[in-house]
Each structure stands twice: as structure tokens, then as C-alpha cells.
């Protein structure tokens, strides 16, 4: 009895979570015009066709990918170096730096967006350039950095500090011993941070909205779509995104399921 109640409860919650998504999926195949968005009138793929002919959408997608890749690489490089530096800091300095680092995570996103916009506009005027992909990348690196640092730091803490010195004693240059000894140890943390940065950047709307100038990223484009006469194209776009994520997750799940659940668990720690 108790079990049945809890099953029903879980089922209801999942229904709540998935009903709207299912709705989008179903209506993306609807062969109708905007006037009767909620009336089913036959199967059609026309919204998908239109979607792939939308040059602006494809441009937005390309922009988003460029930004996400650059932000992930930038944040990972800078963040990993930062973590190495921070881990060897004295306690009070470490505390100050970490508190400031956490700020972008604690602040409401809109405040981060607005404050970065003020700075970037100031810098852009100073150097006589425009806001655009470049400024979005800078902003994204900024809000991704804490995640990289926080995923690398624990790995550094776990590492035996003597290893690095031992390598040097054995004749390695500092650089070489970093690549040969330190990096392999912290690599899982570095990769986690990079992957996180990538996905955060990909999905970000609020900060891009304020910092993007004339450039459109995919979320910004979606926002402008919802402000216009909404066409079922938006449903088609949702469906594709959802399908992609679903397939990827299934793949990851199957893979980690075979290798052992450890990695998945680790990722969830955050």
C-alpha cells in the first residue's frame, strides 16, 4: 500500500516534469498554422524543414558553439593554473581569493550580467571595439572559472605534494614535472571543469543577453523568437535539442554502466 502511494507520487511528479516537454514534441509534428496551435491537424515535418532553412538560427548555433568551445578552453587553462596557485597559498589569502571566486556563483545571474555589461562596455569604448563574440567569451570565461577551480582544487588536495618535488629531485625541470606528474593526477578534475564550462556556456541566456551586442547566441535567438509571432518552428527546435540530449545521456549511461558507476557518481558530487 505504502509502496503504491509512493509510486503514484513519483509518477505524478515525473508527469509534471515531462508533460510540457511531450507537448512540445507532439506539436512540432503538427501540420497547422499558428492560429490553432493546440489543435491537432495531421502529421507533418514542415516545421523541421523551415528550421533548417533558417539562416539566422544556424548562425546563432555556430556562434554558440564557438563561444562555448573558447570559453571552455579559456576557463580550463586559467582555472587550472589558478587552482594550482591557490592550493599553495597561505590560509588567509586563500580565504580571500576563494570568497571572491565564489561571488559569481552566489550573485543573482542578472546582477552578474549587468555588472559585466557595464565593464565590457567601458572596455569596448576604451579600445574602440564593439561588443560581440569576444565580449561574450570573456563574460562566459568569468562565470565558468569558479566551476573549474572548484573541480580541480579537490584533486590537488588529494595529491601527494612530495611527488612533484621528487620528480624535480630526479632531474625533471619544473615544467616537465608538471606535465609528467601533476597533470595526470588532476586530469579528471580538469576534464570535469572543462565539460561543465562547456555546457554552462552553451545554455547561458541571461549573461549573454546583456553582453552580446549584435551577436546572437542560440538562447538569445530563442528569446527573440518567443517575443514574436511564435511559430511551431520553436517546437521543432525544442524537440531536436531534447532528442540530442536524451541520446547523449543514454550513451553516457550505457558506457558508464559498463565501466562502473563511479564516474557518474563523481560528476554528481557538484
Amino acid at each position, binding site marked *: 500500500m505504502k509502496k503504491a502511494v509512493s509510486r503514484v507520487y513519483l509518477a505524478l511528479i515525473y508527469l509534471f516534469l515531462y508533460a510540457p516537454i511531450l507537448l512540445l514534441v507532439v506539436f512540432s509534428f503538427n501540420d497547422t498554422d499558428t492560429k490553432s496551435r493546440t489543435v491537432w491537424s495531421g502529421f507533418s515535418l514542415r516545421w523541421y524543414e523551415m528550421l533548417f*532553412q533558417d539562416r539566422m538560427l544556424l548562425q546563432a548555433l555556430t556562434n554558440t558553439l564557438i563561444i562555448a568551445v573558447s570559453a571552455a578552453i579559456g576557463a580550463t587553462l586559467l582555472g587550472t593554473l589558478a587552482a594550482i596557485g591557490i592550493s599553495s597559498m597561505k590560509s588567509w589569502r586563500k580565504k580571500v581569493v576563494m570568497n571572491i571566486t565564489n561571488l559569481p556563483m552566489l550573485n543573482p545571474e542578472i546582477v552578474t550580467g549587468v555588472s559585466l555589461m557595464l565593464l565590457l562596455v567601458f572596455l569596448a569604448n576604451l579600445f574602440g571595439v564593439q561588443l560581440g563574440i569576444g565580449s561574450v567569451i570573456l563574460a562566459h570565461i568569468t562565470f565558468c572559472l569558479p566551476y573549474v577551480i572548484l573541480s580541480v582544487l579537490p584533486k590537488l588536495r588529494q595529491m601527494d605534494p612530495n611527488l612533484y618535488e621528487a620528480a624535480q629531485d630526479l632531474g625533471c625541470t619544473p615544467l616537465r614535472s608538471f606535465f609528467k606528474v601533476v597533470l595526470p593526477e588532476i586530469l579528471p578534475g580538469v576534464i570535469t571543469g572543462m565539460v561543465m564550462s562547456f555546457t554552462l556556456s552553451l545554455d547561458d541566456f541571461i549573461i549573454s543577453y546583456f553582453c552580446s551586442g549584435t551577436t546572437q547566441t542560440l538562447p538569445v535567438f530563442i528569446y527573440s523568437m518567443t*517575443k514574436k509571432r511564435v511559430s511551431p518552428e520553436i517546437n521543432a527546435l525544442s524537440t531536436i535539442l531534447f532528442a540530442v540530449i536524451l541520446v547523449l545521456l543514454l550513451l553516457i549511461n550505457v558506457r558508464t554502466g559498463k565501466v562502473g558507476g563511479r564516474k557518474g557518481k563523481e560528476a554528481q558530487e557538484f
Partner: protein
Amino acid sequence: MRKAWKAAALAALVFLSSAAVPAAHAEDGEESAPLTGETIYVYNWGEYMADGRDGSLDINTEFTRRTGIQVEYSTFDTNESLYAKLVSGGASYDVIIPSDYMISKMIHEDMLEKLDFSNIPNFQYIDEAYRNLSYDPTNEYSVPYTWGLVGIFYNKQYVTDPVDSWDILWNEKYAGKILMFDNPRDAFGIAQKRLGFSFNSTDEDEWIQAAVLLKEQEPLLQAYVMDQIFNKMESGEAWLAPYYAGDAAILVESNENIGFAIPTEQGTNFFVDAMCIPKGCRNKSGAEAYINFLCEPEIAAANMEYIGYSTPETAAKELLPEEITSNPIYYPPEEIIENSEVFVDLPEETALQLDALWAEVKMGGPGDAVTLIVTLAAFLALYLAIVVYKKVKRRREQ
């Protein structure tokens, strides 16, 4: 931190999206003029240019095909947000299409470039009546794109009263089914005309009266919207909405129950939207080529046929089908135009008052500092109380 949850598993997205990129390149293969590598950035109202939908001409693609200049096209939904985007320094565009009063504001604030009309020979097609208008008296900064009037769209199925005055937007019978402009000038304009005031009043009291009227209306409204009106009216979700006459092309034609009326007696807003080049543009000659292209009668006609607004070019009007040019919605008789008023840029003081009143209308009445301070203080007190309580407790335990 909240984002991290998402990121942790999300990583996968990468692969998928990268797979989608080649598709992007596969798409464009039919350009005929060689690309010059130049790009112009165009910022226009939403739903305000033919884009190839429903068999219309895709204006931007056609421009690229002819000139080899690529167009980065994006849209705004109010004059005010266009202004904010430009002043904040957040973006620079090559061609923008603001309305009359915003153009004069921008001219006053030195935000527009003077146009080189030798690059825009098609300006010759613009009718005399639309040159040297009050917002740009010497016509150095702008080229008219469209003009029109504001009226009321209504659903004939549900709205049984005659729609001939702005009063109907305050009719309780239709509570919850009325939409309203989500921008201060247009929204206040309706209240002002209902009260018999000018749009461009500088009398503080008149603005306050208009605000009172809008606050009265707020509980009856379904929502403050701009282009979302299309969906809401088409689906029958809303029954009454003031909007721009040109959009009848989309609205009336997509749902035969939708009617359009202009409250002639109280008067309405006559607007002209014109193409301008903002200061800080990156490609002025490209921008002028674009403006010139849009003025070409065939292009203008194809464009207007789709968007439905009225063209300031007789040459283009002649190319349009008879059923459009004889339709009083798009080309209203002279007397209606005569009883309409144009928005003029407001003096700084009035503009500030308008901003404050508009926020007040939207948040349902003015607030006061005391409440806010008390709230913040209460939170702070709670925090301090907990800290002190814990300290005392700890001391007692020791």
C-alpha cells in the same frame, strides 16, 4: 552552483551540436553575386520585413544575392529598447528603423549619422508628403520605411459592442480578454486620447490622469504585450487589442473573425517608421546601399505586401494589388489621417515622469521607501538574532 548540477551531466551536448554544424554549411549554396565579405547589421522591429515565409520575397537574401553584402538581421520590440541597446553601448548597428519621435530624440542626442543621399538615388520615389516631416525637418537623417495608424483589433465572435472608441478597452464585459501595448508611449497615448489630451502634452497633471486611467485598466487586462498579440488574437485567447494597422495583413487574413477599427472621433496615432544609420556604424556605404535597395519600388511593394504596412512611395503602391490599396485599413481616407496626431520627442522632465509613471502602472501602484527599508531591516534583524542566539547557546554549553 545551481548551474553545476546541470553541467555535470550535460557535457554530452557538445558532440551532438558539432554534428549539426556541417548541415549549416550545406544549406547555403545558391548565392549568385560573389560575396564581398562585407556585412551590415540591421536592427528592425519584429515581424517587419518579408522573410520568405508564406511565399513572400526574402528581402535580406535577395539583397545579399544582388550585392554580395551579407545581412546580420535582428529585431527589437519597442523604440525604447532599441534606444537602450544603442545608448548602453552594448551594440552598434548599421541600419535601424525607429519611429518618428525616437528619431527626433536620437537626432537631438547626436546619435544618428547624416545620410549621403547620392548613395540613395531611390529616395526620389518617396512621396513629397513623407519628406521633411517634423521629426527630421531637413530630412538629412532618415528615409521613411512605412507609415500607419493605431487602431483596435477585435474578435467579432465575442465583441458584440460597436468598436468605435478607445473606451471599449476599459469595458468590464471583456475583462481578462483585453491586451495592451507593452511600451509607455503607445499605452499612455491611448489613455490620453480617451481623455482628449495631446500625446505630446507637457502638463504633469495630464500625464498623471492618464496614469490613473491605465491603473484602472490594469485589472481588466490579460497582459501587456507587443508582438505576442499575433498568437493571442489568432487563437482567440484575447479578444481586444490596440495595435498597428499594418498588422491586419497578418491578423485579419489568418482569422476571418478578427476585425479592425480606428476610433476616429477620439483620434489616434499617426506614425512613420524610417530607416536611419546610427553613429558608430561600421559600414556606412553598405548601409546606404541597403536603404536604397529597400526603397526600390518593386522591393518595397513585395515587402509591404507581406508585412501589410503602408508604403510612402506611390510607385510602390501602384505595384500592389488593388485589394490592398483600396482597403481603408491600409490606406485610410484623408479625414481619418487628419484627425490623428504624431508623437513628438518629449522634453527630458516629461520623459522622466513618464518612465516613473509607467513603472507604477505596471507594478500596480507606487511603493514607498519605508516598506522596503523595513523589509531589509527585518531580514537583517533575523540574521543577527540567529547569530547572537547561537553565540549565547554555545557559551552556555561550555
